[in-house]
């Protein structure tokens, strides 16, 4: 694999843990945890600490699916089976189920290639018949046919095929993406965060009290965040700056550096951008972010720019969907720049409400810039699907993540207690929508049969069939909303620890960077060298509303170099994230 010959990440001062037993002299350069070069074999990473057991979603299968199997990636087969269940050493299944499991790959092969399976014997039969009839006889029969019929038999399918090719929507490709690379001078360890929270006092006399600090301590310890996450420079002050000037400074820092990286990677000039979509939920200045970008990079006068605000943490995928729609009606070969970010500076909550303190602890600085195009030249991914589901029609979902002022008048984001349940429901709705579009025929057939069986024979006898999304996707980028969200999704989708490793590690290293977190996770997968041509990626985003949005990508080319936000830290990952991190 070309990736295993990538240059090793530069050893930087960031990539070391100091030890008090060092005597004199500088510390030796670090070796990775398993003393291997930074492109470890996909299948050898040990599973991460297992998650707590509590089953709240009713539609889960009761038997846990096999975890941490070595994944053999069959590049030769046309069907991409993903994990070979044959190797399942699951001792919990009965012998009957064992046999069924062994038959499963055969079943998948047959159903997924149904047309081929049917056509093969028919073709063989036709060939035998033709051979029996003899070539002379065949020619005689052909001459007997009327010319008009022959012409129609050829012309009609050809015309239909041409019309189909012309009228289908154009494919949209991701040329490349770049994430904001955090700087060590924005780093916030737990202890600093808590100390600041304690020392913040405002003129109005409102202050975060002891109980709130203890609550935040407990939150941070169990949050799954690491000690390297970053907050904007304005938040390093006591009390933090929350004014527009500081907010704009953060935006410029994040967005401009991500776009600079992207322009360098793709070699495109800002004048070639036709469409510009930016999403940032909580900060919407005038002029908008898009105008800021146009001003800074000198873009053309006819750029179609849109700023999406207030759309929550799943807005990144909404922007991708919007950019795709705009690209499909733009002239051929148009380019769209999509920027996803969240501005932390104006949103530091200074009150005492517990439900509103959680975002303070989890949200961190981050952003991503992507270049989409309808031309396949130099593209790295193809956008297969974007599926958006909104559950805002229900009261509980609508009020689940709600920005409001608390009793003392401090503005913050209120997260309701049943967030996980609502997230589960939204995910279910999204799966129902995206399942038929991405799952192979074999899984859909099984799901349909299970559905019918449950309807006909009553719900008790048959458990609902959970389609195995690992037959449809090789990689999963689940929005790193928090440890609980990732645990919940892992359980709901029946994913292994390795599948959600990217999400957990992105949460640990970068915190919850809102809409750009899926891009940090993709960057992790690529930095680990796991992305191969033909791999399919599923990005799932959640956000206020309550929305669950998915995007399915297919890899055309793996990354060419090791540059990215994980450059300096990838050799330290994956880490074992304890239940409670004592700081």
């Amino acid at each position, binding site marked *: 694999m070309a990736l295993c010959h990538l240059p090793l990440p530069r050893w930087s*001062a*960031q*990539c*070391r*843990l*100091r*030890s*008090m*037993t*060092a*005597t*004199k*002299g*500088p510390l030796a350069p670090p070796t990775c945890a398993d003393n291997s070069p930074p492109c470890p074999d996909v299948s050898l990473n040990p599973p991460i600490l297992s998650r707590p057991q509590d089953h709240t979603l009713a539609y889960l299968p009761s038997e846990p699916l096999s975890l941490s199997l070595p994944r053999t990636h069959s590049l030769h087969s046309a069907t991409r089976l993903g994990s070979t269940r044959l190797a399942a050493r699951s001792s919990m299944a009965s012998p009957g189920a064992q046999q069924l499991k062994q038959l499963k790959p055969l079943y998948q092969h047959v159903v997924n290639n149904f047309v081929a399976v049917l056509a093969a014997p028919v073709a063989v039969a036709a060939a035998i018949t033709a051979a029996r009839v003899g070539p002379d006889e065949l020619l005689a029969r052909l001459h007997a046919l009327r010319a008009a019929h022959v012409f129609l038999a050829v012309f009609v399918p050809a015309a239909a095929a041409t019309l189909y090719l012309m009228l289908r929507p154009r494919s949209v490709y991701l040329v490349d993406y770049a994430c904001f690379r955090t700087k*060590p*001078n924005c*780093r*916030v*360890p*737990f*202890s*600093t965060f808590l*100390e*600041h929270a*304690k*020392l913040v006092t*405002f*003129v109005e006399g409102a202050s975060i009290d002891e109980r709130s600090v203890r609550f935040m301590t407990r939150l941070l310890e169990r949050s799954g965040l*690491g*000690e*390297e996450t970053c907050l904007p420079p304005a938040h*390093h*002050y*006591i*009390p933090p*700056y929350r*004014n527009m000037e500081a907010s704009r400074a953060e935006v410029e820092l994040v967005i401009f550096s991500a776009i600079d990286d992207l322009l360098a990677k793709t070699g495109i000039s800002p004048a070639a951008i036709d469409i510009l979509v930016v999403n940032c939920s909580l900060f919407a200045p005038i002029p908008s972010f898009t105008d800021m970008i146009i001003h800074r990079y000198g873009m053309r006068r006819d750029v179609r720019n849109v700023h999406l605000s207030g759309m929550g943490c799943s807005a990144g995928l909404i922007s991708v969907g919007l950019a795709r729609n705009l690209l499909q009606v733009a002239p051929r070969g148009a380019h769209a720049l999509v920027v996803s970010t969240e501005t932390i500076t104006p949103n530091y909550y200074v009150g005492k409400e517990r439900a509103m303190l959680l975002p303070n602890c989890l949200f961190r600085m981050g952003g991503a810039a992507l270049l989409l195009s309808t031309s396949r030249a130099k593209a790295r991914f193809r956008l297969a699907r974007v599926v958006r589901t909104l559950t805002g029609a229900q009261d509980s979902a609508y009020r689940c993540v709600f920005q409001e002022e608390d009793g003392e008048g401090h503005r913050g984001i209120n997260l309701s207690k049943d967030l996980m349940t609502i997230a589960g429901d939204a995910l279910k709705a999204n799966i129902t929508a995206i399942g038929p579009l991405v799952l192979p025929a074999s899984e859909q057939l099984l799901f349909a049969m299970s559905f019918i069986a449950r309807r006909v024979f009553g719900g008790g006898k048959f458990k609902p069939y959970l389609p195995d999304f690992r037959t449809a996707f090789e990689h999963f980028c689940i929005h790193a909303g928090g440890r609980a969200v990732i645990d919940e999704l892992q359980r709901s989708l029946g994913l292994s620890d390795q599948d959600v490793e990217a999400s957990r590690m992105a949460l640990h290293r970068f915190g919850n960077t809102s809409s750009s977190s899926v891009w940090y996770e993709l960057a992790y997968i690529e930095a680990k060298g796991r992305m191969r041509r033909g791999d399919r990626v599923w990005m799932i985003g959640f956000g206020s509303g309550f929305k669950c949005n998915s995007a399915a990508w297919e890899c055309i080319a793996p990354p060419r170099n090791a540059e990215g936000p994980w450059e300096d830290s990838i050799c330290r990952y994956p880490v074992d994230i304890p239940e409670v991190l004592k*700081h």
Partner: protein
Amino acid sequence: MVYEQEEVLPGAVHGHRLSTVVPSSVTGEVDYALSDADLAFKLHYLRGVYYYPPGDVTRGITTKVIKDPMFPWLDDYFPVAGRVRRDAADVAAAGEGHPPRPYIKCNDCGVRIVEAKCDRDMAEWLRDEAPGRLSQLCYDKVLGPELFFSPLLYVQITNFKCGGLALGFSWAHLIGDVASAATCFNKWAQILSGKKPEPTVLTPENMPGHSPASATAPRSVKQVGPIEDHWIVPAGRDMACYSFHVTEPTLKKLQQQAAVATGTFELVAALMWQTVAKIRGGVETVTVVKNDAAARSGRALANEMKVGYAEASGSSPAKADVAELAALLAKGVVDETAAVAAFPGDVLVYGGAHLTLVDMEQVDVYGLEIRGQRPVHVEYGMDGVGEEGAVLVQPDADGRGRTVTAVLPRDEIESLRAALQDA
């Protein structure tokens, strides 16, 4: 941005804005053990101010320029970014009834940076020689009452109206003596200039365990306490730091009066001893704290000053010859360093038992060059000094004279000024 409605007295330093700087990489679960010598000095705080003159170079020194090198600097000096904790597993202390032994948890909590402004010109400020100006330019917090949240180092950046810059360091003596502190700050300046500084050595010395200690405090120091979590013993009287310059001609005169060749520190310290004895009457014994560069272990953070006392036998120091006192300081100091470290109780070293004379001759304070700009003046004072007072003898800008900072009760300072003007 002023966030509190403070009344700004004309000429006062105002507009304080706090922020924090942390190490740039994760330290991990590391504890820095404090030696007995470190704990002996825990009630004292160094206050050092470096003045940079107005000019193009100083104008280019923004807060960002000052802060950015601090992140890698704290990677090397990560204990300075930690916080004091008490060792809950210290069974021995629990048995004896006093609080458990403190140590430093290297949790990357960081160093506090304070940005402030002053509406006066720096030259005017220096000329005034106001006592107490040091406390305006160094953030005057101490460790406690909440040890968990007390930074060990504050750096105050004060911008004067003329464009001059003052850097005030408030350093807890606990983690290192003045030589360690000065080296630490110089390393930061080296990183700022882009040079790669020498590696720091931070291994703690082998803890000797609980060596047998005497029941009474050594003569050089005064026992106080027991101190709980607020590590300052308020002196009964209002103490202030007063800095003044001892010129080269004065030094030459003192040298000539001495019969044998005597070190500059001894001469200046003897002069101060005599002056204070005249003002106060009866300063028979002094505590002497010396810095011996040759005897240092090479550890980056250590309290390795030599503590001792000198007793003027016979005549009262007020009437004795400066040369005699100087000779006494050179030869007649009884070293009590080990005893001070081994003493288990809480002590005040500076200004506790007697007037304390501190030798900072070998400390390279003028090495803190920012972008090639040397400080135009440096003065080091101290907080947490006992009533007896302390005198710090430091090098001056050109190296030929000496800067002396006297930490004395405010009323004695007036008399000191008068006495010095006469001399």
